[in-house]
């Protein structure tokens, strides 16, 4: 077992340092790159915090949809193939709901300030 602090805590501390202490001292192209870097660290923090639960929920939902077990990657590939072949579409019970929930879970990590995401999460 690795000791504390957890990776998400470490990365958040680094991101906060760069944002609060370093960013104000930097200008031009380097400031742009620094902002991208801070955004990347923030994304990693969100993934470390959120993806455990959302992956588990997605896995359970895929198992229910497809009727058997497999890795998350295998089951997603199978769902993708079923949609491509037409065997599964939006009228298949549970599919639309599954696609929405998994997509919202991705946005929560990748880009929680994206306007479409904010609109959709404000409605529910």
């Amino acid at each position: 077992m690795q000791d504390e602090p957890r990776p998400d805590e470490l990365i958040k501390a680094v991101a906060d340092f760069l944002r609060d202490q370093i960013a104000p001292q930097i200008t031009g192209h380097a400031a742009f790159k620094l902002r991208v870097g801070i955004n990347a660290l923030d994304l990693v923090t969100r993934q470390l915090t959120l993806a455990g639960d959302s992956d588990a929920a997605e896995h359970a939902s895929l198992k229910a949809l497809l009727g058997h077990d497999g890795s998350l990657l295998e089951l997603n590939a199978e769902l993708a193939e079923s949609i491509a072949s037409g065997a599964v579409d939006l009228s298949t019970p549970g599919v639309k709901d599954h696609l929405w929930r998994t997509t919202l879970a991705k946005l929560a990590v990748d880009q929680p300030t994206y306007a479409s995401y904010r609109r959709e999460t404000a409605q529910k």
Partner: protein
Amino acid sequence: MAAPAFVEALAKSVQSWCAGATGVRDVAQLSGGASQETWSFVIARSGGDIPAILRRSPPGYGSVSGRAAGLSAEAELMRLAYDAGVPSPRVLHVLTERDGLGDGFLMQKVEGETIPRKILRDDLFAATRPLLARQIGSILAGLHGIDRAALPALRTLSSTEEIELLRADYRGMDWPRPVFELALRWLADHDPGASQAITLVHGDFRHGNLIIGPDGVRAVLDWELAHLGDPMEDLGWVCVNSWRFGEIDKPVGGLGSREEMFAGYEAAGGRVDAERVKFWEVMGTLRWGIMCCGMMQRFRQGPDHSMERAMIGRRSSETEIDLLRLLAPRGA
């Protein structure tokens, strides 16, 4: 910032074709545009300095994709657009091997803003914003009206071929995305077939590639993805939600309505097919999503191991939520 050898080569190039040029100064790489280098500089010249822009692929660096028109074709298209009255920068020089700067061209710098958030929020643009959707329509009509006989060699792609290309791109990444499969399926089911009108298509007409001032659009940039095809493609692409930058209820680049753009297009002599525009908006949303995935791939495999590319890879999920909003809206 700029390597001395690069500045020296640039100064030498400028002196070889620009009468009275003595050198260059204020050489700076511009941010934005992850696919190619863009440099800003000033040509020092007796008789008046010229603010200029260099667009180039550095020596030994390939183009962004197999779809690129090539930088020399881009320069040619920019010249044609300029002559046709489409707002464009004046092309100053197309790079040759002798310049030692890679592939690319130099153009006169057009002052103005390209940063979407400033264009969409700053007071400076408050008066012109409500007019821009219509102006975009009229510029697109002008661009689509450029005589085909004058164009450089460009690829021609039908909607059906474009769907297959996207499918191949997506499958080549070997990472399952059920929402992209749903979109590919929808596109195949709604493919409008060959367009009656086949015109020059800009291919990347959106924020970031438009220089805007308080007086409106001053220049259309970046012809990298220009091709021949259905002119409605450009109208659909400019409506892709990724280019609304938060103003999601204003489809045309966060500026205005489709109807305003259509009115500008038709007033300038174009003919709108709204169904086709919707088809291309879905196609464009998927296309941007797949381009984001492609950035991720180049980040992993290519020579440019940059954070920007890696992070753009994580923007593909934005297009997934937008595809669901288009194809599977909740509560419907």
